[in-house]
């Protein structure tokens, strides 16, 4: 009788430990996602200041400034952090915003007055710092997601994940534009 209890208990303990580990990994990924959001929020707060300064000098890239404003609104919109699709869209919008900001930084090079403006210089320096923090948060998030996704995809984790309703999470990937090789002629 005792042996029978023991035989039933072992798989239950294993399943529980597996389940606890999955939940731990999901929570870690969510924690990492919130770290990304903290940094993205900092960037979003900084953008209006940069745009205000840039608007005084920039004459040609009006569309770029409009795009940035629209993308900022999209990136700062609320989302459900349990919904894979919504997380993916949120991260994509943030990455596109980053790409457009990168374009703005390059465009600044064409306006010597703007480039040498003290407030702009300070804002750009802060922006670069925030970008470095976003990059670090993204690496943390991707590491946590890799660990979660491996656990969710590999047997028997996939079965337990289904029972516990734990799903995969999307990676925070660079946009296609960011992955494309840089054409030096466009910048110089």
């Amino acid at each position: 009788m005792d042996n029978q209890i023991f035989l039933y208990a072992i798989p239950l303990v294993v399943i529980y430990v597996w389940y606890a580990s999955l939940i731990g990994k999901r929570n870690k990924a969510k924690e990492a996602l919130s770290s990304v959001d903290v940094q993205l929020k900092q960037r979003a707060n900084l953008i209006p200041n940069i745009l205000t300064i840039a608007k005084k000098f920039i004459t040609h890239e009006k569309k770029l400034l409009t795009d940035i404003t629209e993308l900022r609104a999209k990136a700062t919109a609320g989302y459900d952090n349990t919904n894979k699709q919504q997380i993916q869209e949120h991260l994509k919008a943030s990455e596109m915003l980053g790409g457009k900001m990168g374009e703005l930084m390059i465009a600044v090079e064409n306006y010597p007055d703007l480039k040498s403006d003290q407030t702009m210089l300070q804002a750009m320096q802060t922006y670069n710092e925030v970008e470095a923090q976003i990059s670090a948060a993204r690496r943390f998030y991707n590491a946590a997601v890799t660990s979660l996704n491996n656990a969710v995809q590999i047997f028997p984790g996939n079965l337990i994940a289904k029972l516990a309703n734990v799903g995969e999470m999307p990676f925070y990937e660079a946009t296609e534009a960011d992955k494309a090789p840089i054409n030096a002629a466009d910048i110089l």
Partner: protein
Amino acid sequence: MFRLNLSSSGISLTRKVKRAKVSSNTINKVFEVHYNTYIKPKEVSFEERRKVALRRYNFRIFISVIIALPILFIAMNYIMGSNSEKEQEVISGIMILAIIGAYYWCRRPVKRYNSKIKSEIFPEIFKFFGKSFSYSEKSNLDLGQLSSDSEIIPSYDNAKCEDHVTGRVGGVDLELVEAWLTERRGSGKNRRTVTVFKGLFILFSMNKDFSGKTLVKKDWGKIGNFFVGKFSRKYSNVKLEDPEFEKQFEIYASDQVEARYLLTTSFMERLKGLSDLLAASIQASFFDNKLMIMVNAKKNLFELSSIRRPVNFIRDVNMVLEEMKIVMQIIKELKLDQRTGL
């Protein structure tokens, strides 16, 4: 391969510099003027002091040998004639202590002379790197504080810190101390003193702001890390993307994001490069907006020429330049003087 410039002095340094044999004949061209102005004039007076110290040293050796030989002869006879093991042990112990005492007594004039060089000549050498540089033979570094702040210094019972250099290069504050840490281990007949660290502690101000702590420890393999892993209880283990870096180092941090902010992919490359460049095991700690690097070095740094050689500070100067070159290389290799965000 690339060439570096030591900001103020303009000394050219190649990247793949091995710890070259220190030359005693030729002085670095850039340093020549500084040498001729501040150091060379002191050679005459130091030659006199050296001769006096050497005479005293030789005299003490002579006296020690004259006294020690008959005593040693009598003691050996007594030990061989004695049947008491206890007596033999006591006399042997006294003899060993007497030999150690005589050694230190003989070396004293040399020690004093060397100390004079370090207190009068070395500060002049370090002035070459800029006004901000200072050197002192004895270190006032609060090792206990540094140990608790950095959390990478191994536990020790006895610490000997010397050759303390402070200065500022390219906007980076630096502090360098040579340290020798020992610990008593075992009990009874197995009681012994073990060297737990010998090398350099180098502290740099960082070009990034951070509030937590990140430790870059030597990787001891899975089992080793498990036993060494007392940090894992206080800090979380950080798994980074670079497998080569992960093989070499084990990272613990109070903040996962901050650890990645400091250890960017390019910084990881640089740390690996630095370890290869120095051909020594290194560990690092980021705390209080500072970076501390621990470099293992078997030989004594800032070691002076033999007292038996006539005074020629060229070798000492070249040795200091060689050691400082390493510090400058660390700054350049890790790009600590640049605010690149990378």
